[in-house]
């Protein structure tokens, strides 16, 4: 017995030792990035490493529907114009300048003459015409075509000469500039695919990166699924800095794909990435470590989306067997809705869900949308007493002493509150909502649902009472038309109405139409301000809170000027020596 045991024991000990020994034998074999971060004396390469949470789904810029692909392709392709994330205005990119004709139905773009595709071919108006021809092709599913279809008619894109393109609109269309930033694609590479109707399959993620030809400051050199994407600067990029030096400054960029937020954070702390977008719970820790690890934590702005509670006001849902469910009355009753709006504890939400890094939301358009956010709206203060008073005025009181309030007909106020499960912020917010609403005497059944199931409920079965849900926001308010219009499919509280069911919805419909046609920015802003006022008054979407966003940037990274809408002049980012 003994010798066998000894051998086995020895083997086990060796195995354990091997496990411990290995690291000591090669501590220097860790990634070069981490050593670079720790030894400032070494000469740093012009190389930036960032992290992202998911793989790109396509390399075809026209077919992108997810943000990860957008991130991967952002530096390879360029549009006619781009958003200035500082001012939220549109600035020239491939188009040098543009002008409208008198009635705003023709917009002429003058293209840069010094732009070449990555393969050396000159970029011309033909490519622009081809790009929009592709977008409007019925075999190419994409959203841009529907955005640019105005009153059922597509806009026409015509070539005037090699460097001039004319957009002819059926009627004036204000969102045009914000909507034609679509990446321009090369006709000489993709033309054949469109003709053969294989365009939708072109440039999938299995395409060798060197085949992707754009005009942008970088070329993709390598993509290893679930690991990283590498970019190398385009030496022939057209843009120069004030000293005449060719941009971009960075030689190389690496985008690490790390599917887990915690790992992403550890990687930043270990010096394996240069930039980190912290979650609220990481911000305090980061600030404490910033001195020691030589990075800065900056606030980049307020979340651009909207996170709100909405009640089902769809009459079709409540009318069964000739009887009308009393809930429809509550959910359209201003007493009830106002009471709910007063019973949203935004302070607790900010503290519990965002570690204090948040702001109360008042308008559906984020304050970061400087042009269109209405700053004049007054938030309803959090007051359960006020809410109780409003409920009592509306006839909602506890008539039988069971602790649950009833409406005038004696129906107890009981309803279900949905959100998508797995989203911790929303789940916490729902528990705060439920607690306060229960204090008001309502019976709230909290039902988290898997996202796909929730979407089905909203779209098809319509079998829900209240929901906490969020939308991402863009600069162009017309892109939210699907939500604002009573006929829209995302008009959650009562979608796809054949004609507006209420007076205020009719008004919003009109304002949305006028907003799309009004070319005067100041007048246009007034229209959207009016919409925000109506939404604030009628409470179809009861606003909650918005997160304040931060980034952490290593001290040696220069010109990393970030805003919630994106990076300002990203081609100027460089690494200090």
């Amino acid at each position, binding site marked *: 017995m003994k010798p066998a045991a000894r051998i086995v024991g020895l083997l086990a000990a060796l195995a354990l030792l091997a496990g411990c020994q290995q690291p000591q034998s090669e501590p220097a074999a860790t990634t070069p990035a981490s050593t670079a971060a720790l030894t400032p004396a070494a000469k740093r390469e012009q190389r930036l490493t960032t992290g992202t949470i998911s793989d790109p789904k396509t390399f075809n810029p026209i077919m992108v529907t997810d943000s990860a692909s957008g991130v991967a392709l952002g530096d390879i392709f360029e549009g006619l114009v781009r958003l200035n994330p500082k001012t939220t205005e549109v600035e020239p990119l491939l188009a040098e300048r543009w002008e409208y004709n008198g009635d705003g139905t023709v917009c002429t773009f003058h293209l840069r003459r010094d732009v070449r595709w990555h393969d050396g071919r000159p970029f011309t108006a033909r490519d622009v015409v081809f790009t929009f021809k592709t977008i409007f092709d019925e075999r190419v599913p994409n959203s841009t075509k529907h955005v640019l279809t105005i009153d059922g008619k597509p806009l026409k894109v015509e070539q005037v000469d090699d460097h001039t393109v004319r957009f002819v609109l059926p009627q004036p269309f204000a969102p045009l500039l914000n909507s034609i930033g679509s990446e321009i694609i090369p006709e000489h590479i993709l033309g054949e695919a469109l003709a053969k109707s294989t365009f939708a399959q072109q440039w999938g993620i299995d395409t060798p990166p060197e085949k992707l030809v754009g005009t942008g400051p970088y070329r993709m050199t390598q993509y290893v699924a679930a690991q990283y994407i590498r970019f190398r600067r385009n030496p022939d990029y057209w843009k120069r800095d004030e000293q005449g030096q060719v941009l971009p400054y960075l030689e190389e960029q690496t985008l690490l794909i*790390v599917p*887990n937020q915690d790992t992403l954070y550890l990687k930043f702390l270990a010096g394996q990435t240069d930039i980190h977008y912290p979650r609220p719970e990481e911000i305090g820790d980061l600030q404490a470590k910033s001195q020691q690890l030589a990075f800065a934590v900056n606030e980049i702005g307020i979340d651009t989306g909207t996170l709100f509670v909405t009640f089902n006001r769809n009459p079709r849902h409540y009318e069964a067997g000739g009887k009308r469910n009393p809930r429809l009355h509550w959910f359209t009753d201003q007493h009830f809705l106002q009471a709910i709006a007063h019973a949203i504890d935004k302070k607790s939400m900010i503290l519990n869900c965002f570690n204090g890094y948040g702001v109360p939301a008042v308008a559906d358009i984020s304050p970061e949308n400087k042009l269109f956010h209405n700053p004049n709206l007054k938030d309803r203060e959090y007051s359960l007493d006020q809410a109780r008073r409003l409920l009592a005025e509306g006839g909602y009181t506890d008539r039988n002493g069971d602790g649950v309030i009833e409406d005038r007909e004696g129906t107890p106020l009981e309803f279900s509150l949905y959100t998508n499960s797995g989203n911790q912020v929303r789940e916490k917010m729902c528990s705060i909502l439920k607690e306060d609403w229960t204090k008001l005497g309502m019976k709230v059944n909290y039902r988290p649902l898997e996202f796909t199931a929730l979407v089905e409920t909203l*779209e098809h079965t319509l079998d829900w009472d209240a929901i906490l849900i969020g939308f991402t926001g863009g600069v162009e308010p017309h892109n939210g038309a699907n939500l604002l219009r009573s006929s829209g499919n995302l008009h959650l509280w009562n979608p796809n109405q054949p004609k507006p069911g209420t007076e205020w919805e009719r008004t919003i419909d009109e304002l949305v139409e006028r907003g799309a046609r009004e070319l005067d920015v100041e007048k246009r802003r007034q229209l959207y301000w009016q919409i925000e006022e109506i939404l604030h008054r009628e409470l179809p979407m009861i606003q909650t809170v918005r997160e304040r966003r931060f980034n952490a940037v290593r001290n040696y990274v220069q010109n990393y000027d970030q805003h919630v809408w994106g990076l300002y002049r990203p081609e100027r980012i460089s690494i200090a020596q």
Partner: protein
Amino acid sequence: MGAYLARRLAHMVPLLLGITFLSFLVISLAPGDFFSTLKMNPSIRPETIAELQRQFGYGDPLLVRYVKWLWRALHLDLGISVAYRVNVADLIGARVLNTVILAVTSMTFTWSLAIPIGIMVALRPESLTDRVLSFLAFFGMSLPNFFLAFLLMFAALQTGWFPIGGSTSLDYDNLSAGGKLLDRLNHLVLPVIVLGTSGMASLMRLMRANILEMQRADFLLTARAKGLPERVVVLKHILRNALNPFVTLAGYELGNLLGGAALVEAVMNLQGLGTLMLDAVRSIDTYLVMASVLIGSLLLLLGNLAADLALTLVDPRIDFRRLEAGR
């Protein structure tokens, strides 16, 4: 043996049909589809989603879609992933090697440690070593994998000894062949420890129990009475018999190769099948899920068959002629 093999393989056909059809049914019955997520994006129009659905053949009834899928699968075409819009086979191919390396390494790690330790403690039951190792084993078993993964990565951050996630370094392409191997191994150490320790406890306890039970067997009494040296008793009589159930277990392990490491892959940022499949299920990427079901069940069935065949080598009592005659 040939006839036995043929019969076993033939049995797999209805099983695989059943498994795949049921899976297809379940995926299709789940509320929503891949495009549900897009529907909540205000800048994506419903018309676009309808176009995409048409392009991916979502209009067909369930049975038609299944038969179409089956027909293509029989021609080794696993379809196109809705999320990635490339062939499912390409997606899987890009990741399968990593998962296999991880699974095989951690299995080797587990087995080569658990079996000797199991034997060692069984030969001296209730000793201090037994108690300490059993405690550690249970500790390892009860610690959730993802948590241990974080602990180890945190340790890696503090010490700088190991990379934090990933399967290769960024400068992997510039390394020499030996450097590449070392780099890979260095990236494997932590995940292998995480995955290895989780299975270690049960294997070790199984070994221990098997041997303890065997100790009381009559044939050991005979062997010892014959005056065989203890070494021979342990190695020839006890071990050979105690290993029997492990062969069956190894067959099952083959089936677990695909999905078992998903959480660790996600936490440690490994380019494996597990995370791909997890995402596929969550986003209802039908053909990708079907491919994983198909490959997973094939591996399980083949693993069991291999285990049964291997058992005949370990256990002389199993005989094909008798098996074939028995049916």
